[in-house]
């Protein structure tokens, strides 16, 4: 018994000392990557390590569902990685936490990552308060997935270019629909379609330096009314994402002709739809003549922890992963669309007709308001949009309540701005 204890104690000591020794001898760069990217980035890293023999990279994969919380707890617990992948909408929050290193200086000096090679709208998503805090790794945005046969049967040979055409096509499709089929599926718990329509109308969403809601303004009101009308006219069903039992089966049987989604569904549609279901992707129609209408700047960026002791090595890794060759490799492994335009080659995303619509769309994307409260505000938008769609609230009533609730959410932000102005 005593011996056992001694051996155990000794081995613990040894394990600890070996661990410490290792860390001192060879600095390890810690990279946190999320979901599927976390799996495949492991296969990109060896080439980086060959080019930089003095740097060893330790990749940790984190599932998307736990990523946000894990990054926050890591920040609070002081165990942040040197480099990490961040959803673009999370950047403002981590900037507010003062967790990200500004990349402007390095970008200016770097020849490997010319800023103008990135899709401008996406690059802008990681710029907060005039400073750049992340380098886009891959991009996504949302646009229309549609059934070409249903659209053609309604007398529209190509995808609609204006809101009017779109509604006309949907109305025609709805007239021809049988059973419980609809022209479009816009899950009621997704804020993106409505916010995209509002951005297309030119809505700013927030005002006064992002400290108050601006939802009663004319552009947002018009987009809101347009969106609500799609449901009230019966063009889209009143369902939420959780109720769709099998999206792909429903799409295959023609339960809806239009669906708003992102590049991750290109691969899914290809593998899950039975052969012979004709579908295509198209950029958004515009409310006016300015085709295509804008969409959201999504995707993920690579960021460097402000407190990292190995920022030079971290930047080298970020530069490496942004190289067109690595972006192409990531595309091949995951289907993630490259953030750099020069990586849109053939073979590669340039050869994929379904990705082509994304390339067009990505030239016209805008980020959502860059404040940590945004997701919470977006949640309120869906709540009131649903109330209006269900006719529980009138449109003006809903927008009034939305402005009121958003102002409550942003109270802290107003207080902080006032305090800053005072000092």
């Amino acid at each position: 018994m005593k011996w056992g204890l001694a051996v155990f104690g000794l081995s613990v000591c040894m394990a600890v000392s070996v661990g410490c020794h290792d860390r001192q001898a060879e600095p390890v760069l810690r990279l946190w990557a999320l979901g599927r990217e976390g799996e495949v980035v492991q296969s990109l890293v060896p080439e980086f390590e060959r080019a930089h023999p003095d740097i060893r990279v330790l990749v940790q994969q984190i599932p998307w569902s736990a990523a946000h919380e894990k990054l926050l707890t890591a920040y609070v617990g002081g165990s942040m990685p040197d480099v990490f992948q961040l959803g673009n909408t999370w950047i403002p929050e981590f900037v507010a936490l003062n967790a990200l290193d500004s990349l402007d200086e390095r970008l200016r000096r770097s020849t490997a990552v010319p800023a103008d090679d990135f899709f401008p709208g996406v690059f802008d998503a990681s710029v907060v308060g005039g400073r750049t805090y992340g380098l886009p790794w891959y991009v996504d945005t949302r646009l229309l997935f549609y059934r070409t046969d249903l659209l053609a049967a309604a007398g529209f040979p190509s995808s609609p270019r204006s809101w009017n055409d779109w509604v006309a096509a949907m109305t025609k499709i709805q007239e021809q629909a049988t059973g419980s089929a609809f022209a479009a599926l816009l899950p009621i718990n997704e804020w993106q379609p409505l916010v995209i329509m509002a951005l297309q109308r030119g809505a700013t969403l927030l005002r006064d330096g992002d400290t108050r809601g601006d939802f009663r303004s004319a552009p947002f009101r018009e987009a809101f009314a347009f969106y609500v009308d799609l449901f009230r006219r019966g063009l889209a069903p009143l369902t939420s994402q959780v109720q769709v039992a099998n999206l792909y089966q429903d799409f295959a049987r023609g339960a809806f002709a239009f669906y708003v989604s992102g590049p991750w569904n290109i691969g899914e549609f290809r593998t899950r739809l039975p052969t012979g279901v004709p579908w295509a992707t198209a950029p958004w129609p515009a409310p006016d003549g300015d085709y295509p209408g804008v969409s959201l700047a999504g995707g993920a960026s690579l960021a460097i922890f402000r407190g990292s002791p190995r920022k030079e090595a971290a930047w080298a890794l970020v530069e490496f992963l942004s190289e067109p060759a690595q972006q192409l490799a990531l595309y091949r492994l995951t289907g993630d669309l490259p953030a750099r335009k020069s990586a849109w080659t053939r073979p590669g995303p340039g050869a994929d007709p379904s990705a082509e619509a994304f390339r067009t769309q990505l030239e016209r994307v805008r980020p959502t308001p860059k404040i940590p409260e945004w997701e919470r505000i977006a949640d309120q938008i869906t709540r009131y949009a649903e109330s209006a769609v269900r006719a529980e609230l009138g449109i003006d009533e809903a927008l009034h309540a939305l402005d009121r609730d958003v102002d409550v959410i942003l109270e802290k932000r107003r207080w902080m701005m006032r305090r800053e102005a005072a000092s």
Partner: protein
Amino acid sequence: MTRDADPISARRRIAPGLWFAMPATSAIVAFFFVPVAAALALSFTDFDIYAVASWRNLRFVALGNYARLLRDPLFSIALGNTFYFVVVGVPLTIGLSLGAALLLSSRLVRFRGLFRTLFFLPVVTTLVAVAVVWRYVYHPRFGLLNQGLAALGLGPVDWLGDPHWAMPAIIIMAAWKNFGFNMIVLVAALQSIPDNLYEAARLDGASDAQQLRHVTLPMLGPTLFFVTLITIIGYFQLFAEPYVMTQGGPSNRTLSIVLLMYEQGFRWWSMGYAAAVAFVLFAIILGLTLLQRRLT
């Protein structure tokens, strides 16, 4: 002079019982009382993501969070939904449990052990798995329930998508999932009722219904009180069912107090506000428990 007689050392010595209680007590203090006290303190601040960045961004708001709660339309919706769930769900669950327990104790029923196991099965099944299956049961087109209704000539109901039916759907599922536990407790209580009481009642000419009314129910009283209390407390903490099945929708009709607290705290990091929600829920449950104790 013996040591025990020395008044000073006797006072210094800690009673042995205290030593024995110390490990458990310190664990409870460290992992229960301290966090609860911290949460209470948190509920008087506006702790959020900005406060994580810097303590300078933390404000003491006293009862501000509680005042905001009273004005928050979402909180009143969540409160209403939770009461709806409790008021309908608890009697339904208790009724089901009592009915099943009486059936299982009846001499007419065969395979009692089998039925007892089957009825208890939902209790030990993971809720997420149950919810996935029930989502299929509730499916408006292909669901078992709607096909059954169609056979009876009733129209299809969009169980989880219709604001009027979503909460009943959640209640039905919760009752199905939970009645087994109460049933087992009641079966045990039924078995402990002495047979001679029934014999005496029969000799006095009591019918079956009269026996139930005047022997069984009074003898079950304390047990019924216990299971009702446990069910009420559990049902006030409604969370997993709507979280998995509806995410609080449609139109917030299944948003419960705990779901609201979860969203505020762990989705939006409004920890101060979420802590206030938690203490209001605590106060409600405490108040109801005290009230029920006075009534019985």
